[in-house]
């Protein structure tokens, strides 16, 4: 058992080292290709843009590690942004409005987790339903027209300044630490991984599957809502269509980072590195003025290559890193 865990640890580390290596190669190439890439301002942009993906991806890491999936995060982000906007425009204080938005996200996650547990339906379908449901609610509440114009104390969450950083980056950094501690050093994290590894064994050892499953999806709803806060505050607008396709970008990042789609294995550090990798890629493609049609193609190729490599390595023990 102990030996097995050491191998798992090495295997994870190896994947992350590989990602870091790819990341460094990309940074080196982009730095030599454009004088504007390797500057603090540009990295600030990358951190700023990546923070949204990172926050959403943290929640999804837990869900995927627990053997599930959540397709609703983009729509839930939009819905909670809309909730905050409506609350603010109805005269609620900024703090309470943010809280109401986050509660709406938590509620959607909780409802999703409950349905998945109670009816034993594939989370893919359930969260697909919740995606449509949240998007529909956001559209109904706004009537299809974005709500805009918020107090300064709210927009600060998206475009304020704290020294050289801004609130989204610091929020992301804080949540990374919280998530890493939760996944690696708490009972909740341990049970999350166990849920993905062997749910039946966990159930037989007397752990409430219901509680932990719902908690995992609730957590994901909360991170989606925090993402909604950032998008809404940054753009000073709550859009019913905000976060369109965001779920796919973030799921791609989580899997790229080394979290197993089969569950039982998750890594916060890998997720964060993968988010930066994709963030730098998007930034670099614009900096290099790559024509738009090729960008989609390139991002697709890179994700496929990375995932295929990870899978082949895990199965065949490539480079000597085999679990057995």
């Amino acid at each position, binding site marked *: 058992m102990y030996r097995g865990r050491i191998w798992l640890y090495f295997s994870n580390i190896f994947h992350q080292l590989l990602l870091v290596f790819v990341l460094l190669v990309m940074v080196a190439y982009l730095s030599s290709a*454009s004088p*504007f*890439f390797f*500057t603090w*301002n*540009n990295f600030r*942009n990358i951190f*700023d*843009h990546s923070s*949204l993906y990172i926050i959403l991806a943290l929640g999804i890491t837990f869900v995927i590690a627990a053997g599930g999936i959540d397709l609703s995060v983009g729509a839930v982000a939009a819905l909670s942004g809309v909730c905050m906007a409506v609350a603010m425009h109805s005269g609620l204080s900024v703090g309470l409005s943010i809280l109401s938005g986050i509660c709406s996200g938590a509620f959607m996650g909780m409802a999703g987790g409950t349905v998945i547990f109670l009816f034993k339906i594939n989370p893919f379908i359930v969260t697909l339903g919740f995606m449509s449901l949240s998007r529909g609610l956001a*559209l109904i509440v706004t*009537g*299809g*027209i*974005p709500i*805009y114009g918020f107090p300064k104390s709210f927009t600060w969450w998206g*475009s304020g300044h704290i020294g050289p950083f801004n609130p989204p980056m610091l929020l992301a950094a804080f949540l990374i630490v919280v998530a890493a501690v939760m996944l690696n050093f708490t009972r909740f994290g341990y049970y999350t991984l166990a849920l993905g590894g062997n749910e039946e064994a966990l159930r037989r050892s007397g752990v409430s599957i219901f509680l932990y499953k719902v908690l995992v999806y609730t957590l994901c709803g909360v991170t989606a809502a925090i993402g909604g806060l950032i*998008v809404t505050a*940054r*753009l*000073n*607008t709550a*859009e*019913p*269509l*905000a*976060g*369109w396709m965001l779920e796919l970008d973030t799921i791609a990042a989580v899997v790229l980072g080394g979290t197993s789609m089969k569950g039982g294995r998750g890594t916060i550090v890998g997720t964060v590195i993968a988010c930066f990798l994709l963030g730098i890629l*998007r*930034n670099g493609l*614009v*900096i*290099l*003025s790559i*024509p*738009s*049609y090729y*960008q989609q193609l390139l991002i697709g190729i890179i994700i496929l290559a990375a995932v295929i490599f990870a899978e082949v390595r895990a199965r065949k023990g490539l480079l000597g890193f085999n679990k057995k």
Partner: protein
Amino acid sequence: MKKKKQRVAVFLLLSIAVFAAACSPSPAPAPVEEGKNNLVSADAAQEQKGAKEAGPAYAMNPKAYAMEQALMDQLMPLPDLHKGERIGALIITLANPFWVAMKEGYERAGAEMGVEVVVMAAPTEGDTKSQLETLDAMVAKGYAAIIASPIEPFNLVPGVVRANKRGIKVINLGPPINKEALKDARGWLDGRITVNFEEQGALAAEYIVQKLGPAGGKVAIIQGIPGAGQSEGRTAGAKGVFENTKNVEIVSIQPGNWDRNTAYNLASNILQAHPDLKGIFCANDVMALGVVEALQAANKKNDVVVAGVDFIDEARESIQRGELDGTVAMSPFLLFPRSGATSRW
């Protein structure tokens, strides 16, 4: 029956008149150019404020309303109406403020004219299949006429053919339905009023060029979803103008997917690569507003001219605040619901 045909003929004439007006070169730049895409910029904001106070209690942009009135006057006299008929209108999506305004326009026009207008839409801007299915459902319900605005030139073709077979008049409004494809499928349109997307892009680009002055500078274009008709048309129009202007250089053309946050990220990335950027054209207002936020966050708003297309309400307010520089309004678009509803039957 004969009378009916006559009215259709009248309508066709009217729609040609609108279309012709849209194509003819304008003699001189006037504040309101009937039947043309109209550029609305910060310079005109003052005038607009006045119009808002004086104008009728109308939810749409007051300036757009003035354009619409001017165009309606050209179309007079309108044919007689059969009260109480049901007309279907298929628009693109109610998830876009522009089309929400369009729906309101349709319904208001229907109420004014005494006909029932039922407005349907696809769930999202890219859901071509659902839009066709919605059209099929509308055909089955047997409206007197259907006014259709397709997501792309080909997606509604089979539905239009089915409507033809059932004797339902189909009018194509806004984005064009491909006529060759329709002909191949043995279908036809009973009327068409369309918009010149290239001209919209060109107008906005001309405004940016004019703002930059003889010194010119670097400019960028943020497209919508690559491949979508509006996006490609507006991009081509703007590109043409930028390329034909001395000293103006296009440094980047990026897809913003009609998404505000994507446009925000793109703008800050483009600025990073080209700190001396002078102008950004966005294929719609939603993205232009995202760009404005990004420029403000980077303290660059005063250095970069931003123009969009659509003239949504939020854009109007942004122009009044002196943030967004300009946008292209489509006067015929806001009129269409009325002409469509009035000219039938």
